[in-house]
């Protein structure tokens, strides 16, 4: 299990990175944390001619407030989601999700940008981008652009990023004082990909649920927003009836794959169970 030989480039700027990628005529991969890419290379499921290491590009680093948005550089590590005070204060769903992301050593190396760029439909962070209404900042031939999460995830491992483009930063709307949130997942073992997982970011509205966003993962080819469930819950007191109504509505929101370990009907069931648990966790009062 040894990767096929490749050349290695460590550019200092986005332009140089893009140039290195282009020079390989597309037969290149960017690497940031590498926690998903390296196993794929080791198993020779991917075998690029050139590996372009993004670690030297300063523009991809740092976490800072920019007005009402929190800018999280793509190279920010998973572990930082647990410890960074700005993330904890302004993107608490990321902090809530982080302990469920693989294992401590993976979190020390994996990057938030890498996870969101890969867009594994079973991963926590991409789905939380949806739940938070984040925007992805992407560097391409025309320079930088921002893509809202709702438009970013397109299909299985397909995002708004065109090959050669680079995810630069995640922009998260900062959480206001009336926000509450919940994250949970159902996994066979600690750190495994979840059978089903999800997060909710909601506004409190005098004992009722105000505007909210719900996102699930492991329920379809992409992270998925539960818009029908959101519509049901908006304006409701989070009681058993509201939960039951939302659970019924959820069926229309998700499109689970069928596999032997977690058949699609089971995943639908688990998603309903999890939705109930998430709503009950919300501190609406």
């Amino acid at each position, binding site marked *: *299990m*040894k*990767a*096929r*030989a*490749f*050349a*290695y*480039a*460590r*550019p*200092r*700027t986005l332009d*140089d990175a893009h*140039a*290195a990628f282009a*020079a390989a005529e597309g037969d290149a991969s960017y*690497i940031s944390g*590498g*926690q998903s890419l*390296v*196993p794929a*290379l*080791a*198993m020779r499921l991917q075998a690029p*001619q050139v*590996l372009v*290491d993004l*670690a030297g590009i300063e523009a991809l680093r740092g976490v800072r407030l920019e007005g009402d948005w929190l800018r999280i550089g793509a190279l920010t590590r998973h*572990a930082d989601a647990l410890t960074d005070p700005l993330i904890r204060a302004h993107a608490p769903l990321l902090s809530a999700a982080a*302990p469920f992301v*693989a*294992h*401590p*050593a*993976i979190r*020390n*190396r994996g990057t938030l940008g890498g996870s969101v760029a890969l867009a594994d439909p079973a991963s926590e962070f991409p789905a939380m981008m949806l739940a938070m209404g984040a925007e992805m900042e992407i560097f391409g031939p025309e320079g930088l652009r921002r893509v809202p999460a709702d438009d970013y995830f397109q299909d299985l491992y397909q995002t708004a990023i065109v090959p050669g483009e680079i995810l630069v930063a995640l922009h998260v709307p900062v959480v206001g004082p009336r926000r509450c949130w919940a994250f949970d997942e159902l996994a066979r*073992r*600690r*750190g495994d990909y979840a059978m089903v997982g999800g997060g909710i970011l909601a506004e409190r509205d005098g004992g009722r649920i105000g505007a909210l966003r719900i996102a699930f993962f492991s329920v379809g080819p992409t992270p998925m927003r539960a818009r029908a469930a959101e519509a049901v819950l908006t304006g409701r007191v989070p009681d058993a009836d509201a939960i039951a109504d939302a659970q019924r509505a959820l069926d229309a929101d998700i499109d689970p794959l069928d596999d032997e370990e977690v058949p699609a009907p089971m995943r639908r069931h688990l998603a309903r169970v999890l939705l109930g648990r998430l709503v009950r966790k919300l501190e609406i009062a």
Partner: protein
Amino acid sequence: MNMMASGLVPLNLTVNGAPVGRMVAPRTTLADFLRTELELTATHVGCEMGACGACLVLLDGAPVHSCLVFAVQLEGAQVETVEGLVARGAIAGLQSAFHERNALQCGFCTPGMLVNAHALLERGGVPDRAEIRDALSGNYCRCTGYEAIVDAIEAAARAAQGSGR
């Protein structure tokens, strides 16, 4: 910009406190670099995909899977392996607690366990058993059943606390 041809690439980093300079093939993982190039064989390879934790080393002070990093990515980095931790006496308490409690059998997972346990204890305080189990959640041990390892880490944390470390 530093664009390399597909041959060997110069690499300079610090391993166990000493500077190391080598020419490496870009596809060489840190685990293979340590084991074959530097003959630091305490770092074990159990899955080559970040699932077993046998290959953990400290990279700039934090545990990472050395099978999930290419050596060339580590220009200027600080790497510490179990050999280094042992040599500078950093894990003497853990070694002793693991020995007393027989928290290892075949010993193949042990270096990864020690690296992770060391990082956990460096945070200070005495973690509870659930925290210890969580910290070890990515470290596979086929022999012990984990309880003895949890016991040993707990004991080492208490001992370190008691000695005012």
